[in-house]
């Protein structure tokens, strides 16, 4: 009984954490939804009566029902996954913001690169060198 409570408590903590990360945009909702579904499933399996779980799937039930260490290992893996997804989301968010701001700056210039064409590497370096040197000079 205590082990079920511990598993549920950790599960709800992780659920709250993931929801908060999605809310703040630190985990992309696509990753977040997968995590939420996984954590909810673990809570359901852990909380279900052992007889019911046994009846559904006997071999898995033997491993899962009331086995605190197994759940803790799963939660540790999930913790690592959440952290990983959080980092990936943050990097992709920065790249997205950069891409959007670059697109806006080019559109504001209204002509220089108003070609509607993604920049080649050389173009990108040339276009970005000028403002940098100007700001240093100023």
């Amino acid at each position, binding site marked *: 009984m205590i082990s079920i409570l511990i598993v549920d408590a950790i599960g709800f903590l992780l659920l709250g954490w993931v929801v908060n990360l*999605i809310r703040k945009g630190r985990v992309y909702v696509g990753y977040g939804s997968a995590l939420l579904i996984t954590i909810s499933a673990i809570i359901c399996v852990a909380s279900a009566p052992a007889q019911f779980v046994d009846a559904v799937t006997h071999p898995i039930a033997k491993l899962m029902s009331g086995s605190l260490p197994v759940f803790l290992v799963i939660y540790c893996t999930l913790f690592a996954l959440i952290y990983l997804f959080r980092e990936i989301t943050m990097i992709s968010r920065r790249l997205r913001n950069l891409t959007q701001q670059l*697109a*806006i700056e080019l559109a504001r210039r209204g002509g220089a690169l108003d070609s*509607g*064409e*993604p920049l080649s590497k050389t173009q990108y370096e040339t276009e970005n060198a000028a403002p940098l040197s100007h700001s240093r000079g100023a």
Partner: protein
Amino acid sequence: MLEPFERVLVAIPAYNEQATIADVVGRVRASLAEFDLLVINDGSTDSTSEILRSLGVVVATHLCNLGYGRAIQTAIKYAHQLNYDVLITLDADGQHHPEQVQRLYCESRECGWDLLIGSRYIETRDYSREPIGRRMGMQLFSVVAKLLTGRAIYDTTSGLKVMRRSVFVPLACWHCLDFHAEAIVYLLSLGYRVGESPISVAERTAGQSMYSFASLFQYPVNTGIMAAIGAVEGKLLQRRSSA
């Protein structure tokens, strides 16, 4: 008719729309000559780029494909940074009639809508023309919006929207997916005025829908989670600001 001193931007997100983009830009220029036009080229790999270059239109180019939602977000950021008062978005696939935009713009100004959605279903409420998956999604999110905000929105996925400056910051800063149900729920929960006005749409003649088979499962889950979070966060923010 354009309100004096009001700056209006029409934004068209485009990804691989070589078959229709020239026609859409031409129709927008013809019927909305007094509005500024911005095309967001979302990393197109076909000849959309060349066509846009030949048209001499202002283009915000994503160096890689970021998706529809991020293209709309770029348009909102652009409109905000360049101090536009109104942003109108419409699709590049030629389904929307630019001729109807003027009426929507006037209606949004006269009725004071912060966000006005060009709605395909508000009059008929007949979703039967849509494929089964999309039909179920639209009906589901209409119900979700009603449950979460108390307001029935019949077309949560319309790409034709008129946004006023008041919603630029909340929409650009929040983590909307495709600016569909989740954005509408968030704005309604924050206390903004969201309305719908009937429009007619043409059948898609070229290009591909942005929804794949996988999005049949991903879209409702992701949008549902964001709508629920948006409803709670919007209400909390509103309560905090009124306290």
